[in-house]
């Protein structure tokens, strides 16, 4: 069921966002890019969004939010993604860090971190993966040991996006003893950065871009106030986030700027083959968006959507890779990111960023395992 008042507000909002983005692009303030939610780190743009009330849209006003509906947030997020706007300075914070702290953080954490994100002034890095811990997240080894009034943390995190710009790092650590209870003894901590005992080593992407890092934690000391949620309760806290994290529009719109550009440049006189390609991709996209909105509604209604969310991410991220593979046939040969032709630039971006689509936020093989379990196969 849709609420006519929310529908109306969404329509108005969508036009506002589109007008805003058109002006940003026209004035040259931003340039549409593929995968800009990952690579387009632009704090000034993030602050402009915050000033318009498009950060933390669903959060309580007490922490800088705007108490709007999930559907309205969906509208803003998907418009930004479709335009290829540079949202990397806040995208994951707005999507998962803020909501997690609101759900299980302390008043103090909400006043500082959540409000900071809502103002567009605070970057929080997410420290889950480790050199020996990827898909098997419960195998983390970074250890937090009790000290007087707090904890001492040692270990290393890897692939930590934008740790080099972050004011905080949320680190998943082992606090329990038992090796059998892998999922039980895990705790999250909010570490303030910079910290002399936190060393951040850049890891360059294959494009040469600096996106992620290895983070070394050498006896970093935090207080009890820096525990996020329950001691020993991190597994449940993280799992609760996953459905939302997996089914959002960033799981199928990362290469949409390329599709949009090609479709926009095509006309009725374009070859049949090209029109077919655009049509096939559009049909996939349209169904994905519909799936994604269904998951969003189910989540809002409090229903469990693990398998549906995993399907969106599996299908959607493969679609993101299919877009350049399918459309390259219709773009003058030999794409480069330095070209003067936007089609070639978008194509090169979509190809060179493609390794990430089906990995970040959980590899697709793991997601298919979740779907298979839901189908009763495991």
């Amino acid at each position, binding site marked *: 069921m849709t609420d006519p008042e929310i529908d109306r507000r969404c329509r108005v909002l969508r036009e506002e966002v589109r007008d805003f983005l058109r002006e940003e692009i026209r004035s040259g303030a931003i340039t549409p890019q593929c995968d800009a939610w990952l690579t387009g780190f632009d704090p000034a743009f993030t602050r402009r969004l915050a000033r318009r009330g498009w950060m933390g849209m669903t959060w309580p006003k007490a922490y800088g939010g705007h108490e709007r509906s999930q559907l309205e947030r969906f509208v803003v997020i998907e418009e930004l993604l479709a335009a290829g706007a540079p949202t990397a300075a806040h995208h994951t914070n707005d999507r998962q860090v803020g909501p997690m702290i609101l759900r299980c953080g302390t008043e103090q954490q909400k006043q500082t971190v959540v409000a900071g994100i809502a103002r567009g002034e605070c970057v929080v890095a997410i420290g889950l*993966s480790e050199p*020996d811990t*990827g*898909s*098997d997240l419960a*195998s983390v080894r970074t250890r937090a040991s009790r000290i007087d009034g707090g904890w001492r943390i040692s270990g290393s995190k*890897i*692939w930590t996006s934008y740790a080099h710009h972050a004011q905080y790092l949320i680190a998943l650590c082992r606090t329990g003893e038992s090796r059998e209870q892998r999922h039980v003894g895990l705790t999250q901590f909010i570490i303030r950065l910079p910290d002399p005992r936190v060393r951040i080593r850049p*890891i*360059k*992407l*294959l*494009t*040469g871009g600096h996106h*992620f890092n290895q983070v070394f934690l050498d006896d970093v000391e935090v207080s009890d106030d820096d525990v996020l949620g329950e001691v020993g309760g991190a597994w449940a806290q993280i799992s609760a986030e996953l459905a939302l994290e997996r089914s959002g529009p960033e799981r199928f719109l990362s290469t949409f700027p390329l599709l949009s550009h090609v479709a926009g440049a095509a006309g009725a006189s374009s070859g049949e083959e090209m029109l077919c390609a655009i049509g096939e991709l559009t049909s996939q996209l349209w169904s994905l968006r519909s799936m994604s909105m269904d998951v969003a509604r189910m989540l809002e209604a409090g229903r469990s959507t693990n398998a549906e969310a995993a399907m969106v991410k599996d299908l959607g991220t493969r679609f993101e*890779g299919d877009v350049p*593979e399918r459309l*390259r*046939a219709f773009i003058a*040969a*030999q*794409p*480069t*990111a*330095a070209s003067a032709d936007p089609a070639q630039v978008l194509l*090169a971006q979509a*190809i*060179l960023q*493609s*390794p*990430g689509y*089906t*990995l*970040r936020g959980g*590899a*697709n*093989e793991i997601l*298919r395992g979740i779907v298979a379990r839901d189908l009763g196969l495991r």
Partner: protein
Amino acid sequence: MSSDTMLVDTLARLLEAKSRPADVQAAEQEDGWHATLWRELDALGLADIDNFDPEHGLVDQLAVLQLLGRHAASVPFVESVMIGQWLCRQAGLDAMPGIVIVVPLDPSGGVSAAKAGDAWQLAGTAAKVPFARAGNRLLILASGPDGPVVASVDPSDCSLARSANMAGEPRDTVRLDGLRLPASSVCPLPDGVTVAALWERGALGRAAMMAGALQRALELSLQYAKDRKQFGRPIGAFQAVQQNLAILAAEVTATRAMVDLAGRVQGGRHQRAAVASAKARAGRAAGIAARIAHQIHGAMGFTGEYPLQLFTRRLWSWRDEFGSDRDWARVLGALAAAEGPGGLWPMITAAGDR
């Protein structure tokens, strides 16, 4: 030089030692190509077409190219030996020392040559010329008043803007602003040589390099699947990973089989069809293989430090060079259709039986 395993072994050892991932990365950062490696290849006699048998040398050249691709060697072997020097040989021009780059290779390239009394005048631009900056001599294919001509040009007489493909290899823009050349530097394209034939040699050469790069992507993925442990096991123990590795291996094998066949049938009636098939097949494999290899490597493969990207960025680039998989599929389709009713199967079977 005969088709022997000695050459291959010697070259393999040289590349093992001199074209390691770190060397390739350094070459990309510096000049965009690996000049010192080229000198070593020259010392082995590999930089000169006269060291290859005129009849059967092509098979050796393809073996060399597969190795160069397997090591991501940024050297102009296709450009200088398979195309540049071959053109000199066909045109009966004096052998030219050093690296000979043909400009432009693209049939739609835009340099034109006009008669100016006894001399010639050349003007126009050619973009994405592979290794132009490395050339000691540029052979410019230009459209003349009576058909295409070959003009031999000193690189210092052109203006050259550096550019690169997605793998960081030199793909430069060459511009000529009314360069005057004596009549002796310009000749018509020799009989039996067409722009399409030069392009075809480039496509075959790139397909061979792609076969090598695909092989390396497979080797890296297999090793990674054995070394990387998750859930207490090597990821290669999971069936999903095994299945993907099997698909990857089939892509690599199919490409190599087609490239080898295309090499064997050179000179035969279906030479062009076989090259078209090889480049189309390699282009298809590139996309599938890059996707699987990256997936198996997880985040590690996305980094600049880990060597996989040296091969996948080349595969993504090479599949569009000297004609894309789609361009060649169109050529092959037309050739197959031209065989007439019942002609497809004889074409496929004839090609293997030379």
